[in-house]
């Protein structure tokens, strides 16, 4: 099972933002100012945590918490691999 705190920590490292400054309700648009960076972040999280997201999954994602939730709930099961 993917640990939400580990996802958050990875995001902090990737975005170079200290963990204590990463608020769950922070919006992604405030944290990531460039669209290419957001694409890279989404792929990085999937690679790191063995999750699989598609465009529709992120359609309603607004906050840090939303994104963490999507990664955690889209872990690839052994059956899928």
């Amino acid at each position: 099972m993917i640990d939400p705190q580990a996802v958050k920590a990875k995001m902090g490292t990737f975005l170079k933002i200290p963990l204590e400054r990463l608020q769950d309700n922070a919006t992604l648009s405030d944290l990531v100012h460039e669209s290419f960076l957001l694409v890279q972040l989404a792929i990085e999280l999937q690679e790191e945590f063995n999750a699989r997201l598609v465009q529709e999954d992120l359609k309603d994602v607004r906050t840090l918490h939303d994104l963490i939730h999507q990664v955690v709930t889209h872990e690839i099961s052994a059956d899928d691999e």
Partner: protein
Amino acid sequence: MVDENELWILSFYRTSEISGALFFGRLARTMKPGEIQRDMTKHFSDESMHAWYWTACIEKLGAHALKLEQSYQDQYLAAAGLPVNIMEVLAITQVFEKRVIGQYSLHSSLPGLDPEIQATLRKIMQDEKWHIEWIRDALKGLESDYGKERVETTLKRFGEADLEVYRKTTDEHTERLQELINGGRRR
């Protein structure tokens, strides 16, 4: 000496190649070891070289590249939405690369085209053909992860976005290209 329209178009090509290089360079760093990682690194390297080819070409024509804010990729992302996984990135890139080849091919067929521009277009088009091939193969390989149907519907969706971008936001580009065609006929 390059005219104003031509300079804008060549500069737009250069800016788009730079955007592609930066995007793929970042992603290449993120990829797990394997064929996609290798080919994406080569792709990134090609796009960087293309940006240099255009920069050098413009200088040989006696000018400096214009600083342009928007690239073709920006317009794509606005129309298609952000790709969020490697399959979607490759699908949007596949559609985009086909459009680029079409555009470069159209440009290279213009009458009276400067030999320097012609040579640059031909050189880049060779690489672009390989880009389409490796991405096609990679997408085929990703069908086992994402499903054949999803890969196909993603390509279709991005293909529709491509058409939308081409119709709506390349008016300036098209007008400038038409000017070049008219200019070539006058030459």
